[in-house]
């Protein structure tokens, strides 16, 4: 109806989606955001819940592994160590919850590689900020696509991710909350941002 200056973004997003999901750039088993409708307000259904929660599970696997490995090798001390310990335990609890909820439908973890982010406290903190903010935006974006029971579970997890994000941001001297409304990312965008971290092996 009214042409929008940002219209090309959709095209670019679609191309990215094809590049990331469709072209086999990612091993079939590790396609993180596959099968999630990019248009929001697609009618919620239990089958769609499972796809979205599997996407969430991939994020939780990644975070849980990230904190576990960083605690072993990043030389964390003081409050940053405490943050990694507390957040890591939460992510493990989220993994357990989602695995139980999904049962046999739960997908396995993608192959992960954290590189320098788990070998240095500063890089660890920067990566933690990225991952926690990413999780918040990704969960937020799927809120309206979930059935009410799944939404009830997702919001209990997602505000904990928001707390982690605020905590680690404050720790590294960033504003814990930069805007009045957090973004709602599409599955495509969340997947793209996730692949950009380089932590998911292609």
């Amino acid at each position, binding site marked *: *109806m*009214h042409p*929008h200056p*940002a*219209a090309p*973004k*959709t095209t670019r*997003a679609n191309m990215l989606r094809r590049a990331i999901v469709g072209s086999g750039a990612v091993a079939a088993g590790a396609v993180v955001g596959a099968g999630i409708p*990019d*248009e*929001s*307000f697609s009618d919620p259904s239990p089958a769609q819940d499972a796809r979205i929660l599997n996407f969430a599970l991939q994020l939780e696997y990644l975070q849980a592994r990230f904190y576990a490995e960083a605690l072993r090798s990043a030389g964390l001390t003081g409050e940053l160590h405490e943050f990694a310990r*507390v*957040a890591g*335990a*939460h992510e493990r*609890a*989220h993994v357990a*919850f989602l695995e139980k909820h999904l049962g046999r439908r739960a997908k396995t973890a993608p192959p992960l590689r954290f590189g320098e982010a788990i070998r240095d406290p500063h890089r660890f903190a920067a990566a933690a900020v990225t991952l926690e903010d990413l999780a*918040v*935006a990704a*969960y*937020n*974006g799927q*809120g*309206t696509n979930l059935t*009410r*029971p799944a*939404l*009830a579970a997702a*919001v*209990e*997890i*997602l*505000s*904990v*991710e*928001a*707390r*982690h*994000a*605020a*905590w680690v941001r*404050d720790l590294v001297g960033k*504003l*814990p*909350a930069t*805007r*009045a*409304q*957090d*973004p*709602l*990312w*599409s599955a*495509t*965008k969340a997947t793209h941002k996730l692949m950009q971290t380089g932590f998911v092996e292609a």
Partner: protein
Amino acid sequence: MNERPSILDGLDPEGRVRESLLETLGIGRTELLLAALAGAATWTAGHASHAAGAGLTENDTRILRFDLQLEYLQATMYTQALRLGHLRPAVRDAARVVGAHEWAHAHALKTILGRRAVPPGFFDYHGVTEDEHAFLRPAVAFEDLTAALLKYQAIRLDSRAVLAAAISLHSVEARHAAWLRRIAGVLPTLTAFDRPASQAKMRDLILSTHFVAEDPTTGARRAPGFTG
């Protein structure tokens, strides 16, 4: 038609929210959201306040009205603490940012409600905004409980457009809670799962603080501070 004023114009004069919506939701979704919100508020140029709120269900209206009053209560508390309190720089920064967010939330809710919006109540903070320690306690309690309340309400909202808006506020309230908890010297998180809390629980907290004056004259005792 081309430049149809959207619900975001008042809320977001600099276009930051719109930009982030476009960036994050993609064009199709943003249009849907704006159209749905515009439908909810029947937002048309020049007639904004006229028919606004007409499309909301009774249920959503009740929920949003409660939230609007809650945002006013919190926003005013931060504004007053900044004005009256002797805050450390870290606390002042947080109060400034969090307070601005709560005002933005109030404005967003007011815009969605349109004619059904409730005016700000009369608040009396009984001196807690004059003292940093006294101020942090209720600030943390309100942020924690607002995040919990929005979870309770999320699954009870009829409109998915309103739900999208509520979701985008919810995680910000959780961020505020964690931020203020850290400043107050307590763990920013509670457990691995943040539980919901009902409106009745929030009402209990509000009553326990006595921050809402029964009528204006109660607050007037402390004038001119109470208007924030």
